């Protein structure tokens, strides 16, 4: 089955990214919160990264969603597959620290997990998290992700790799 372009949760609406998300996206990647994802980046790099996010949907027919709260973009969540021979990676980020602590990242990521491993029929999602990113490690745990001993990819040195599968949790 094809991947949905909109997913709704009790509090959030996940939709395909739109050009109007660029300012909030750029503010996050230029700010200190992006240090877990090899940031901060320049404005020029943010533009190219965001263009990549949009193009990803065109090429793969799936990609990252923008997380919206009452129509306001507050972060992104969803699968990325940059290299076609690797498992898709489930990613999530809240763009502004003020939104943390409300369970939005977990709610969004769980909804995407349920859709991809459920209706869409996918079997494996990878999750890459830096070991000192406590907030994201907590989300990965709540999602039921299992830590593996897989090596970090060249582009993201030092990260831990988790797997999410359709297998029931032990």
């Amino acid at each position, binding site marked *: 089955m094809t991947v949905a372009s909109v997913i709704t949760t009790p509090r959030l609406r996940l939709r395909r990214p739109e*050009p109007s998300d*660029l300012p909030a996206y750029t503010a996050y990647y230029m700010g200190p919160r992006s240090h877990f994802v090899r940031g901060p980046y*320049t*404005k*020029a790099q*943010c*533009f*190219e*990264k*965001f*263009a*990549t*996010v*949009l*193009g*990803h949907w*065109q*090429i*793969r027919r799936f990609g990252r969603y923008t997380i919206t709260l009452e129509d306001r973009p507050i972060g992104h969540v969803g699968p990325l597959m*940059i*290299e*076609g021979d690797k498992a898709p990676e489930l990613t999530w980020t809240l763009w502004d620290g003020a939104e943390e602590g409300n369970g939005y990242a977990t709610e969004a990521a769980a909804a995407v997990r349920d859709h991809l491993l459920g209706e869409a029929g996918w079997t494996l999602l990878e999750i890459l998290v830096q070991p000192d990113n406590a907030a994201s490690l907590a989300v990965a745990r709540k999602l039921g992700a299992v830590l593996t001993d897989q090596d970090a990819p*060249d*582009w993201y040195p030092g990260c831990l790799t988790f797997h999410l599968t359709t297998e029931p949790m032990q």
Partner: protein
Amino acid sequence: MATKNIPVLETKRLVLRGPEAEDYAAFKATFASYRSRFMGGPLNPYETWMLYAAEIGHWNIRGYGMWMIHDKVTDETYGMAGGWKPAAWPEAELAWIIWPDKAGQGYALEATHAARKYFYNQLGWEGAVSYLDPKNLDSIRLAERLGAVKDKEAPSVDGNDVVYRHPSAAKLADSQINHGIEMEISHYADPMFKPKGYALD
């Protein structure tokens, strides 16, 4: 903007369409090769895929971008041409890249001429520039054949590139430059035409 909504341009020999997933292989090969040295390459597979996705996403953000150049008859791809303006670019650029084994047929000239005409006539651009590596003689020669001249006053992207300014829409319309370009393109399209020198791009 979905890629299917990107306008299609037709020229004598070529069709310019939005970049699609199935056109990726030649792009990847080109950006893995020495050919891409003036465009930030060579790139590894991860970087190349990111750039290709960005080529498509640029259309969504700006409403214009780079077309994939196809042969009108065989549909084979020859390269890309169009408009490019990431955040670091001072002005909108007319850009082109031709796959290494397709150079020398005038495809970049024909495609970029059509793209410029579209931006001027349909999108109302008053002018455009090309940011070129000063060592990229093929592209500098092409910019000159398109009537562009070096603009030493204009800001460059990062100081390592030279700015070539294209003739404005008003200056290009019905000009001798325009007629010259169309004559050169028609010569390439003519199987009996024997160029005097070797066309670099």
